[in-house]
């Protein structure tokens, strides 16, 4: 049995999973703390980003992929960032009545 576990590498993904669960619990607990809205959003999104990075790297095996995969990921996320920032160049500067 032990050999099987070793041969299919149960340990590493399980550790990642445990970390992910811990992070989930952390973020739920953190949401109970009374902070300003922007801080709360930043904390929640920061934890979510860490979780996403873990899933991308270990579950989706990005760490074993050639460089071009990582470059593509970078292009995609950079484009997303640009879209969000530029849209808010409108909404953040709208005059309020």
């Amino acid at each position: 049995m032990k050999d099987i576990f070793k041969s299919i590498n149960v340990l590493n993904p399980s550790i990642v999973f445990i970390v992910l669960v811990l992070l989930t619990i952390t973020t739920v607990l953190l949401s109970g703390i009374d902070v300003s809205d922007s801080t709360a959003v930043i904390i929640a999104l920061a934890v979510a980003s860490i979780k996403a990075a873990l899933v991308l790297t270990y579950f989706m095996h990005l760490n074993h992929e050639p460089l071009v995969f990582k470059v593509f990921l970078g292009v995609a996320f950079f484009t997303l960032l640009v879209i969000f920032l530029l849209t808010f160049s409108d909404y953040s500067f709208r005059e309020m009545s």
Partner: protein
Amino acid sequence: MTEQTATVEIPHHHDETGTRLGFWLFLYTELFLFAAFFLIYAVYRSNYLVEFRTAAESLNTGIGTQNTIILLASSLTMVLSLNALKAGKARMAKTFLQFTITLGLAFLVIKGFEWGAKFDHHLFLQTTKGIAAGEGSLLLNPSAEMLPVGQVLFFGLYFIMTGTHALHIVIGLIWMIIVYVWISKGSINPDNYGTLERCGLYWHLVDLIWIFLFPLYYLVA
């Protein structure tokens, strides 16, 4: 236009890395599809901060957390299934795949109960009150029974975003069942595991999107 004289079988072109690269690109299109939703969410949240926070309080954090962990666990079993197949243990791969499918179904069932509860409280349908179908609603004065517009937006987005996510779960489940059958038949095997790998990538992406949906709807109340 032409007369055919010969038929040629194309030699099977195998480029697993290339196929995976293409699949990753496909995943980015899915990501951008959701990005449009997230952008709308971000804009309206900044416009209607108070209403969004009030509305978010009516969502059950416990259920959300439970579902998050279920989905994370299903991702884990997916990874293990692929690892097992790569190690030549097709039966074990199938077992892990069964776990994944079960967890995915569990997610949907819980989600279904949550939606049902929202329907019962008319959080969805209340937005329609007074807006007869087929009529332009633009001039309508929001009636006293309606939620504040910010909350209406919140629930509209909540249902559409989680709905789209659930649709992706359903697609993932169907795919996994097909993969399961193919493993049984042996057309997906330790030497040819690309399809399971891509199915896994898709599943992880669905998980990834939920990782962001969860805090935005359940936590920042």
